[in-house]
């Protein structure tokens, strides 16, 4: 059952609704004005990117543990989705930072961690694409994925010590309620789209790996000659 197609469609619909409310109905942000509306795109992207990486970590542990290719395909699919969202996150952040902070980039812990995370997981995908033997690729992807994920909190805390500027985390109590609703809708939309695309990629990668590992089917043998019966 290809349930991921309706899920992706529902996600896209929720994204449209969430952004519609966020752009036209919700009040402008008190300090940032209309620029603050990027919140409805930026915050869901960040959440879902982290969910994708977390899923990749779980899949990597499963893949290393079981040695099965369905886990391996799941690692690759979730890392791919995570990397795309991570790239979007960096772009959105720069677009927002220019009018708000006056610069495209600062060395704030969360920004720096996001950038480091991006290069680390791009590295995992590159490494994966270079290994030709499927079994070896499974191990290499899983090990590199686990190490990359383990590094995320370490990078975050070390850079936090190094310097800090980013806004503190927001919670439903610090965000006014006309803004919470479109944010929630957009977040679920982003999550559904991400799950839908990850499942599509997972099926495609798994099929490719299976084609690669199973031995090529033998061509059909010609029917044996019927010898005339000896009278």
């Amino acid at each position: 059952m290809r349930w991921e197609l309706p899920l992706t469609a529902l996600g896209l619909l929720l994204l449209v609704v969430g952004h519609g409310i966020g752009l036209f109905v919700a009040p402008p942000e008190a300090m940032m004005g209309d620029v603050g509306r990027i919140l409805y795109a930026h915050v869901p992207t960040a959440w879902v990117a982290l969910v994708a990486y977390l899923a990749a970590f779980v899949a990597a542990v499963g893949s290393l543990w079981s040695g099965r290719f369905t886990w391996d395909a799941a690692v690759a699919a979730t890392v791919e989705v995570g990397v795309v969202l991570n790239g979007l996150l960096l772009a959105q952040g720069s677009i927002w930072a220019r009018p708000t902070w006056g610069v495209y980039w600062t060395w704030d812990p969360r920004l720096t961690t996001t950038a480091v995370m991006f290069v680390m997981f791009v590295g995992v995908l590159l490494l994966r694409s270079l290994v030709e033997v499927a079994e070896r690729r499974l191990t290499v992807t899983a090990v590199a994925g686990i190490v990359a994920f383990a590094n995320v909190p370490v990078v975050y805390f070390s850079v936090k010590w190094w310097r800090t500027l980013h806004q503190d985390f927001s919670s439903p109590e610090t965000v006014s309620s006309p803004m919470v609703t479109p944010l929630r809708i957009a977040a679920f939309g982003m999550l559904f789209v991400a799950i839908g695309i990850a499942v599509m990629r997972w099926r495609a990668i798994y099929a490719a790996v299976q084609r690669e590992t199973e031995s090529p089917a033998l061509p059909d043998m010609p029917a044996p000659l019927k010898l005339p019966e000896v009278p």
Partner: protein
Amino acid sequence: MTQLWAVLRKDLLIEWRARAHGVALVSFAITLLLLFSFAVGPNANVLRAHASAYLWMGLVLTSSLQLARSFQVETESNALDTLVLAPVSPPALFYGKALSNTLQLFGVGLVSLPAVIALYDVEVKEPAGLLLLTLILGALGLAAPGTLYAGLTARLAARQLMLPLLLFPLVVPCLLAAVKATTLILQGDPMDQIGSWLTLLACFDALYWSLCGVLFGKVIDA
């Protein structure tokens, strides 16, 4: 433990017999230090302020060449399979190789240090023992993930490129803490912050020396 020493002894012996390579590695590190000063310009104050950054960038860049070598000898002579078949447990193999890499990196750092002090005209304001401690902790931090990734990329055609690509973003915390600690040691530490940076470095080392030791068995089995 005996296995670990055997692997460590074997690796160091190979490096000792190929001394020319070690000399080339050190020369590379010194050349980088020279290049940094050309790139930044002859402003002595700027160079002095960033001396620790140049020291560690030199070490990190050199480490990718040195670490790639730790499996190159074995892959070139197809000895990696033999080494895996030998009755050596994967953790012993990992820790032996990682220790050998740590010692070599520490050696490169030890030679770079006087060059940094002379080239950039810095004076050491805090006890010099702390500087050695930072060097050891930093070398440990580069060597553990470096050895794992060197094993991971050993059989790839593009290993020269993939090893630094994977390793450099990973060692960001290690680099940060090492540079900060070294800067404080060279320029003085009125706020008494060296301890916390060295603790961060030690935590990074502890995390990767344990995690990579566990994962290495899987890497080398395949």
